[in-house]
């Protein structure tokens, strides 16, 4: 089976003003949301305590809340998690109180009012000092990744391509973050890992396109830069779509059956892959064109004395 019987001839670049406007709009919305609503940082970054409990019967959250209130946790957030028998309790770090013992105290309080067994499924406690560090390290990791990639692409291709690919990456990361901010999805360590994977993935896509553009610049004698970029995009189109599709297939499998703990991770990657596919077609190439990429820039450099090497 084939998506396109022969190489397509879509004129992608003629729509690039539209695409740039669309991207700019998305980025504006994302930044706006990030600035006003911020990210809904999970426990990993804020510090605090999270407890997941499994009861042998459906639980009334009001009972749990009142028990916790009596035990000195009026600010505890209690919700069902996955099923009505499972609950999730979140307690923010408290001013002037010791936090490491919170989980034991909560467990003791809840077990004292429950006849049956309560299955302790998960406890996470992150002290305020660790939360700050994780947030810092995460931010640094993202910046380092971008810099390293910039260097690698600059070294392998040309600086205009490097800037184009990093522009596409920043575009993808901002929009993915924007979606998390807009819908106030839980942003934890696994989501951060997913975003770094998005960086890797989106770049993967971009590189394939750039590789073809470079090849075509060297091969095609005729045509403007825009024509060559268009041809390259068309030639790689079915590959771009195919790979995105198989990746999305496995991510959807992960999202559906992977369980609650991996939800945020799968969500971030799904958004990232969709946005990344779009950006490798439009954003990366448009930026390279915008920076004035031309045939001369990509011709292999003929070193002086190169031809002498063949003489024994």
């Amino acid at each position: 089976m084939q998506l396109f019987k022969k190489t397509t001839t879509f004129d992608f670049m003629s729509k690039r003003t539209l695409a740039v406007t669309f991207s700019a709009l998305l980025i504006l919305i994302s930044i706006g949301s990030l600035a006003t609503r911020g990210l809904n940082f999970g426990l990993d970054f804020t510090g605090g305590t999270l407890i997941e409990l499994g009861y042998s019967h459906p639980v009334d959250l009001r009972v749990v809340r009142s028990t916790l209130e009596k035990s000195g946790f009026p600010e505890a957030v209690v919700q069902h998690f996955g099923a009505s028998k499972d609950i999730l309790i979140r307690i923010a770090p408290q001013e002037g109180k010791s936090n490491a013992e919170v989980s034991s105290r909560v467990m003791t309080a809840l077990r004292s009012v429950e006849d049956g067994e309560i299955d302790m499924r998960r406890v996470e406690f992150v002290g305020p000092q660790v939360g700050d560090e994780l947030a810092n390290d995460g931010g640094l990791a993202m910046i380092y990744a971008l810099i390293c990639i910039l260097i690698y692409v600059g070294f392998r291709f040309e600086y205009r391509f490097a800037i184009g690919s990093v522009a596409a990456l920043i575009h993808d990361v901002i929009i993915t973050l924007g979606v998390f901010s807009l819908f106030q999805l839980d942003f934890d360590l696994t989501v951060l890992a997913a975003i770094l994977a998005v960086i890797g993935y989106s770049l993967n896509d971009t590189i394939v396109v750039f590789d073809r553009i470079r090849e075509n610049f060297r091969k095609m004698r005729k045509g403007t830069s825009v024509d060559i970029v268009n041809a390259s995009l068309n030639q790689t189109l079915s590959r771009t779509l195919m790979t995105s599709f198989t990746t999305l297939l496995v991510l959807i499998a992960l999202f559906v059956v992977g369980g609650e703990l991996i939800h945020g991770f799968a969500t971030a990657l799904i958004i990232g892959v969709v946005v990344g596919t779009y950006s490798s077609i439009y954003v990366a190439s448009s930026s390279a064109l915008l920076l004035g990429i031309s045939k001369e820039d990509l011709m292999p450099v003929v070193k002086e004395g190169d031809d002498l090497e063949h003489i024994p």
Partner: protein
Amino acid sequence: MNQYPAWKYLLLLVVLVVSILYALPNLYGEDPALQVSSSRTTAVDISTKEKVRKLLQDANVSFKSIVLANEQILVRFPDTESQLKAKDVVKEGLGRGYIVALNLAPRTPEWLRAMDAAPMYLGLDLRGGVHFLMEVDVDAAVHQAEERYIGDFRSLLRENKVRYAKISRFVDKNGDSGVEVKFKSAEARDKAERLLDKEYPDLLIEADDREGGFFLLARLSEKEMRETRKLALKQNITTLRNRVNELGVAEPVIQQQGEDRIVVQLPGVQDTARAKEILGATATLEFRLTDETHDADEAARTGRVPAGLKLYPKREGGYVLLKNRVMLTGDYIIDASSGIDQQSGGPAVYITLDGKGAKIFSKVTGENVKKLMSVVFIEKKTETRMVDGKPVKTRHTVEEVINTARIQEQLSKRFQITGLDSTKEAHNLALLLRAGALAAPIEIVEERTIGPSLGQENIDQGFASVVIGFVLVLVFMAIWYRGFGLIADLALAFNLVVIVAVLSMLQATLTLPGIAGIVLTVGMAVDANVLIFERIREELRNGVSPQAAINSGYAKAFSTIADANITTLIAAVILFGFGTGPIKGFAITLSIGILTSMFTAIMGTRAVVNLVYGNRRVEKLSI
């Protein structure tokens, strides 16, 4: 055309066979098992093994096998029920001195174990257990060192008959601390300075004349402070290891992280409250003579404590005055066990001292027969609290007298103390005394506990997503690229086997995000094949012959594949460098997956394509 040299087929075959062998142990599952190892004072040998066997036979507990290896006895059971029963039986029967821990032993057959093949090492989020990150208050160790110098200075000056007015710890406005000695005369100060300089060459000692007297300031040198901190951390790791052993945990991880942190991972531990209580406790004991001439309650009320004495609260209420000089510290205790006091019927702790401690103790108790002696229970805690949105460290020490008794006779190596609240407290105190005191207080700054039910659920769900994702991609590739799709499917299956084999060989920790990494790799690994196949199609459309199309398809796609994968690898490596625990797991599987997929998707598929189409006339490709 399109033929591979024999060595390439051979290489692929070898990789395939080795991968299958090393991935194999993951299919065998695990036995509930019991692990018996020795604590410091005992040895595990063939006689211990026979003893365990007899204990189990006498108690009628069925077991599958019992093996002695690496100074450990491993007993396998058919079910968890007999495992749990066996733990009680063996623990009871062997007595203290042995560490009896529950474990899951891989059912890897002997011939695989002989070549060091083992199943993947599952992280805590998959097998269940506790992860603690503990911060050691290393500055408290410096503080303690300074306190120690106060005592040392006091005895040195007294022995040499140098009169001093006061010795205390000071903290100057820069936050630097040290020991300050006050003298009434300059001569005494100068004499003391010479003495201290000679005795403690590592200390920075300077004279400081200001209002109110003549002073000597002693500070720890930069180097010594560093050493003290380092030593405290090392000692804490040792103590934590001893305590974990006392708890009976199989395969614990206790590791230094950074300059002042320790990671403790206890697989399979459920009772985190007890684990926290035991690991974090800093309880130790001190023995001091009790003052009988002054009124302690009066001193507590007025706040005026007579010279040479120190005021302590009593656990049952009220106060007592104790002599400044410590008779003995908990450091000399080599063994302790809890029991019931014969006379009072209350809980008691039986203590055994080492040779040096016994010598000191028999000397001081011999000199002070008929006098009162108190046992001081000391617990130090460090906590980080949020004050105005900023973490602030607070330290507090609980010191209380748990027991005061008249010294009836000279005490020596073995004796008992009473006055504890409950048998549980006696039990915990005995455990802590056995395991040794922490050199500096520790604080839990991160805890991640996963219950066994959630761990199993994570494995099941993770496994399900790998299988479903894998099957979806297989089907899709077969439909889309027909014959070549099937070849890509083979490569994908090969890739999965290689990933599992590499993870098993490296014994890298597999976490839930790690499984997600494998799933992602499955989706992305076909990218290389997609690139190649699309190229071949393109060449075919351009009218190139099938054999040439195959050749140039592979050749032209190669550099693209390499570039694309290296960039993802960069992201994965950075993730590994910055990530903690589970995230590292994701970075590892992603990196391994990228590398193995390059091998299988390029070389693996090419080999099969060459076998099918190579060296013959081909009219049409199934692509």
